[in-house]
C-alpha cells in the first residue's frame, strides 16, 4: 500500500487509524477477538498443560464423563482425553480454515482483479464461471469432490478453497471496476506501467478493506465446511483429530455420552462466531458507508 505514490495511498494512514479506532469501539468485534485469541491459545498452548496425550488410548477409562478422573471434558470411546483431542483438533481445524481462506482469497482476488480491470469478454467469461459456481449449493460440490479424493488436511484445504473463492472474486471485481477509471489509475497508465503492475500494485491494495472483511468471514465458513465434511466421514481422517471428525462418531453415542457431541460443537460455534463477530466489526470499521446504519 505504501509503495505507490498516489493520492489514496497517502491518505491511507489516516483511514487506517480511524478504522482501527472504530474497530476497537465495536464491542462485538472485540468480544470476537477475545474469543478467537482465547481459543487459539487453548489449542496451541493447552496441550502442553494437560496431563494427557491426545493419542493415548486407555480402554479402561472409556466414556468418562466430564470432570472425572482428571479429564475436564471427559473421554471418548477409546478412553482418550477429549480436552487433549479438542485442542489438537482446534489446531487442525483452524489451520485448515486459515489456509483455505488464504488460498480462496488469492484465487478470488486474481479472478476479481482480472475481471474488473479488463472488463469485456474476459470479465464475461470469468464472471459466468463465478455465477456457475454460485448456482449450486457449495456443500454439494464440496462433497462431490471430497467423496473422491484421498483425504488429507492439504487436500481438504484445497477443495474448501476451490468452493469458496467466488465471494471474494465478486467483491474485488466490483471494487476494481469502480477504481479502474479513477485518476490515479489513469495516471499510472499514462506513466506506461504494465497492466500487471496496475492490477496488483495499484488496484488490489485499494480494495484491501472489503477483501479483509470477506477473508475473515471465509475463515468462519471454511471452519464450518471442514466440520461438516469431516462429520460425514469424508474430511480429515482419524487418528488426526479435527472438530468435525470428533463429531463424526458422536451421533452414535448421543444418548449415552452426549458430551462427545456437545464439546466439539461448542468449540466450532465459538470459533466461527468469533470470526463472524470480527468480520462484522471490520466491515463497520472499514466501510464508511456503513455509518448510515
Amino acid at each position, binding site marked *: 500500500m505504501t509503495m505507490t505514490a498516489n493520492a489514496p495511498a497517502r491518505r491511507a494512514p489516516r483511514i487506517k487509524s480511524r478504522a482501527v479506532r472504530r474497530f476497537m469501539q465495536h464491542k*462485538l468485534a472485540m468480544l470476537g477477538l477475545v474469543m478467537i485469541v482465547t481459543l487459539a491459545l487453548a489449542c496451541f498452548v493447552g496441550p502442553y498443560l494437560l496431563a494427557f496425550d491426545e493419542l493415548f488410548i486407555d480402554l479402561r477409562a472409556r466414556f468418562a464423563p466430564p470432570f472425572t478422573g482428571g479429564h475436564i471434558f471427559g473421554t471418548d470411546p477409546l478412553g482418550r482425553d477429549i480436552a487433549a483431542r479438542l485442542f489438537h483438533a482446534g489446531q487442525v481445524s483452524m489451520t485448515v480454515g486459515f489456509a483455505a481462506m488464504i488460498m480462496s482469497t488469492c484465487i478470488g482476488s486474481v479472478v476479481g482483479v482480472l475481471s474488473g480491470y479488463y472488463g469485456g469478454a474476459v470479465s464475461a467469461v470469468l464472471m*459466468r*464461471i463465478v*455465477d*456457475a*459456481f*454460485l*448456482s*449450486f*449449493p*457449495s*456443500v*454439494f*460440490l464440496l*462433497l*462431490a*469432490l471430497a*467423496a*473422491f*479424493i484421498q483425504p488429507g488436511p492439504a487436500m481438504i484445504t484445497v477443495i474448501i478453497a476451490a468452493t469458496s473463492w467466488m465471494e471474494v472474486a465478486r467483491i474485488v471485481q466490483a471494487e476494481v471496476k469502480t477504481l479502474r477509471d479513477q485518476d490515479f489509475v489513469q495516471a499510472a497508465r499514462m506513466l506506461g506501467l504494465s497492466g500487471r503492475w496496475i492490477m496488483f500494485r495499484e488496484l488490489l491494495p485499494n480494495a484491501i478493506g472489503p477483501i479483509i472483511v470477506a477473508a475473515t468471514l471465509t475463515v*468462519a465458513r471454511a471452519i*464450518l465446511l471442514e*466440520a*461438516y465434511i469431516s*462429520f*460425514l466421514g469424508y474430511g480429515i481422517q482419524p487418528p488426526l483429530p479435527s472438530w468435525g471428525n470428533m*463429531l463424526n462418531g*458422536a*451421533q452414535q453415542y*448421543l*444418548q449415552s455420552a*452426549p458430551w462427545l*457431541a*456437545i464439546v466439539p*460443537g461448542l468449540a*466450532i*460455534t465459538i470459533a*466461527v*462466531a468469533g470470526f*463472524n*463477530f470480527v468480520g*462484522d466489526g471490520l466491515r463497520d470499521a472499514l466501510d464508511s458507508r456503513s455509518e*448510515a*446504519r
Partner: protein
Amino acid sequence: MLRYLSGRLGQSLILLFIVSLIGFFVLSLAPGGPLSQFALSPGMTQEQMDRVAEQMGLNRPIIVQYFDWLTSMLAGDWGTSYRDQQPVLTIIADHLFATMLLMGTATAIAVTVGTTVGIWSAVRRGSVFDYTTTVLAMVALSIPTFWFGLIAIYIFSLELGWLPAGNMYTVGDGSIGDYAVHLILPALVLALVDVAVWSRYMRTATLNVINQDFVRTARAKGLPNRRILFKHIVGNALVPMITLAGLQLPVVLGGALVTETVFTWPGMGRLFLDSLGYSDYPVVMGLLMASAMLVLIGNLAADLIVAVVDPRVRLS
C-alpha cells in the same frame, strides 16, 4: 419483456453448460468407481467387473462419456443410475417432494419470523431488542447446522421424547398431523440460519426505507406511525427481500442437504449422499444440474416478481 426473458434464458443455459463441465470434471477425477460397491460380493471377480464396466460404458474416455451425456441431456434424457439402472429423472422426481416440503416449511418460518424481527429491530434501532437480535443472529449463523440438529434430537427426541428423531412420517399413518410432527424439528433447524439472514437483511432494508423521503413526507403529513410502518415501510422494504429469497436459494438447498442427513429425511440431500457412496455419477450429475436449475429458476422468478410488484424496476 420477451427479449429480456430470452436473454436470461440464454444466460442460464450457458451457466448450466459450465455447471455440467465443472461437475463432469470433478467426477472424472474420481478414482474407484461405481463398481466398487460390489467388490466384496461373492462372484464379483475381476473378469465380471470388467464385463459390467464394458456394458455400462464405464471404460470409454471421459470426453466421450461427457458428450454422450450432454447429447442425451439435451434430448431430455438425464441418463440411468449405475446403482439400479433407473432413469435419473425419475429418481430425482421421487425425492423432490420431501426436499420441497422441508425447504418450503423452513422458508415460511424464516420469512415470517425473520421479517418481523428485522422490522422490529429497525424501528427500535439501538434498543436492547435490536442489539440482542443482532448478536443472536450472528450466533445462529455460527452454529453448524448439523450439530444443532444433533443437539435438537438429543433434547427433544432422546431426553424429552416429544418429537420423532427422524423420517418424514410413520409408515401406515401418513396423516397431515403425522407429517407435521415429523417436520417440526428439521424445519426449525433448517430455518435457524435463514431467520438470521432474513432478519439482518430486513433490518437493513427497513432502515433504508425509513430514511427515504416519502416516509419523511408521510410522517410530516401526520400519518399514524403504525400505518406508515405497514403501508409504506414494510411494503417497500419487502421488495428487495424477494430478490434475496432468490439469492438465498442455494444456501437453503445446501442447508436442506445437511439437515436431511441428520434427520434421515428422504429428500434430495439424502439421495445425494447415498449416490456419492455408490459413486452413482449419473445421479450425482443429475442432482447438481437439478439444483443449479432450481437456483436459476428461483432467481429468475424473483426478478420477475420484483418487476411486477415494483414499478420502478425495469427489466432490461
